[in-house]
């Protein structure tokens, strides 16, 4: 008898949370708390919307914007959700790459904190490629990267290096430039 009671109690325990799953009007959405890497992933999606690449950049992949992630970073998990979305009629593909991968096929490159030491090397490899480089490494924009994600207190901001953007053949919309906290 006791065994039955315990089995039942456990079963009820499992059904309970499932019931919450199907209940309507979940007001939790407005109280959801976001991690910084989730916001950075959403910002990356928006940067793509405000950036124009030369037509040549899409020669081999007409309908896809490829986002490459270099290094190990928790941003990869929320980024994978972007593959369901589209930017200017093009699909988004997320790829994880290492330092030996040819970055020619990337439209956006996110460089993780773990690659801090290799930064000069990476930036020199990007010279002349149509790649929008984004990172949250300290001083990224100052040192030649295009968009630097910065945390100011509890909020995320970004800095843009327009010279680096020009050198990569990329055009960043003035709407985006207006929102940057610093321009190099």
């Amino acid at each position: 008898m006791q065994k039955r009671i315990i089995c039942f109690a456990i079963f009820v325990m499992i059904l309970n949370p499932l019931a919450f799953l199907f209940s309507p009007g979940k007001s939790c959405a407005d109280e959801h708390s976001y991690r910084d890497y989730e916001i950075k992933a959403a910002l990356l999606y928006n940067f793509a919307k405000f950036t124009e690449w030369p037509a040549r950049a899409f020669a081999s992949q007409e309908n896809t914007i490829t986002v490459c992630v270099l290094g190990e970073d928790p941003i990869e998990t929320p980024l994978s959700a972007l593959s369901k979305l589209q930017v200017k009629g093009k699909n988004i593909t997320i790829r994880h790459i290492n330092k030996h991968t040819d970055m020619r096929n990337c439209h956006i490159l996110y460089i993780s904190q773990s690659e801090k030491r290799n930064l000069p090397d990476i930036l020199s490899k990007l010279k002349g490629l149509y790649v929008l480089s984004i990172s949250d490494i300290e001083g990224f924009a100052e040192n030649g990267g295009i968009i630097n994600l910065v945390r100011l207190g509890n909020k995320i901001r970004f800095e843009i290096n327009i010279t680096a953007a020009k050198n990569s053949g990329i055009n960043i919309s003035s709407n985006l430039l207006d929102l940057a906290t610093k321009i190099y």
Partner: protein
Amino acid sequence: MFSMTKTLKWTLLFSIFFMLLVTRAWAEDAMSELTSFGIEELMNIEVTIASKKPQKLTETAAAVFVITQEDIRRSGVTTIMDALRMAPGIEVAQSGSKVWAISARGLNGRFANKLLVLIDGRTVYQPLFSGVYWDIQETLLEDIDRIEIIRGPGASIWGANAVNGVINVITKNASETQGTLLTGGAGTEEKGFAGVRYGAKAGEDMSYRIYAKCFQRDASVLSSGDKAYDEWQGMSGGFRIDKNDSSQSFYTLQGDISYGEAEDSIIVPSTTAPFSNVHDSDYSFFGANILGRWTYTFSESSDMALQAYYDNSKRNPFTLGLNKNTFDMDFQHRFLLTSRHEIIWGLGYRHIHEPIDNSDVIITNEEFNSDLYSAFIQDNITLVHDKVFLMIGSKFEHNDASGFELQPSARLMWTPDHKSTVWGAVSRAVRTPSFIEGNGRINQTVLPDDTLFPGSPPAEIALVGNDNFDSEDLVAYEMGFRHLLTKKVSLDIATYFNQYDHLRTFEQGSMLCEPSGSPFPLCLPGDNIFIPLSAGNQMTGEIYGVELSSDVVVNDWWTLKPSYSYMKVQLHLDSNSTDTTSESAEGESPHHQFSLRSLMNLGNNIEMDAWLRYVDSLPAQNIDSYITLDLRLAWRPAKNLELSVVGQNLLDNSHAEFKPEIIDIASSEVQRSIYVKFVWNF
């Protein structure tokens, strides 16, 4: 195979499958919401800072209960042991003024051996006896930040023998205990106590504190009503230094020293009439320790910690004199292998050197030395971003008694929203043999002449260690649910099914004649018979139960904290076992325990707190169930001064909680008591 297990296993698998199926949609929902925001909105969102504690995941995917400093203060407890009564699933039973039996989820006893107790990462578990000597009381209660209690195995990364749970007492960082604190009080059982602490900064990055305290506790009362012989007193002092080298590097150095004296009343068996004597004696205990820890944070997702400590504890009760020296070193590293795999791994080494003074009651080797090597690895896998996590890990250990031990564990956690957590776990844990179980002899009782058969000499029964005694092992299946029902009511439910194997029994060995050594019945005149009960592993068992705890904020001045535990112990001796006593442990744990704390903030800076507790009977020990009530009234006449009066165990003159095992001690009861206290900060 017990069908309970199959049901639980299938339920667990089914719930995992369901979770994965249904929450796939949820992950995308969170991101699709974020991506619908414009850039300006995104820049305005406040970010939550990820927890830097590497154990956070394993702690939330486990049966955790945290006792905060506020809980300790408002409950009026004067020892860590009494504070543990607030936690569900933990049995705390006191016999007299200084003997405690504390365990989690069953198999309690004075030498309860399945609970790991740590103070700031330093273990206070005694491998000699496989137990904890609770009378060493070093910390100032006001310096405790929190006590984390994790019921169930496999949740601890630091340390071995965490079979049924871990208790981690964490003291405050020195930067949080600045200025001077003076405290003192007196009462009927707490005859007197006083403490002082001073904390200050030394430079921008360094803070320190020093403290000293002393206490004296009255003797308790025997069930007959007579005064027991168990008065005790002690004093201790210590320091803690915390330093930030930079925002990434932290150092801690802490140490304590303590000394105490106590009275003991032991029933000593004798081979001559009257065959047992009550022996009252005084003993002293001493402890000193020093611990250093260095933590370095590489990034938000990667850090490491290195810790080393030396601990000395000496005691010389009539039963056994010990001088234990422990040196321990631990290293732990956490990093991201890929964005979905967080790896935590570590190495540890512990060396113990312990000379022993034998007595007439306990005889063993003259020295205990042990080397313990351990390692662990854990992979925290994000299956569905921010929603479903799987932890797979294992501890590896090599010890002198049982050799190599493997303790794997798997945990699954689902957080459907920020208000709820559902978790499940399967783990294996072992309780390694204590030194005494390997080679020692504890004289228990003597049967007078003529008892065994007409004309028989006196017969001494003793528990005897055995080299072949193996580890006890456990496979635990657990599940839990945590939910914030409303902003004012939270609920935490944990359920478990523990399957034990190779539990300790005492098997009757061949009778001998002493002191000649000839085998029975070839005794020489003047010999006594010696009946050895040799340590064996011939018992299996199942322990299962449910634990609930809740916080109810009734209104802005009144909070209620109820908790309830149900537990059933079922033990089975192997068919070839000759043990006659071990199965009685079934009736040595209460089926039900209930605790209700009420906290009221009345006007004029007055606090009124009440704590009602019910503990079910222990039929195998003839201990009745009991209900107790503690009341506390506190007043803050000035901002820095708190005066309080606390009444404990108010409903009865005295009540019994348990009868200590292994060593026969006159069993004593817990009395009604009252004390007054002041705490002054400046």
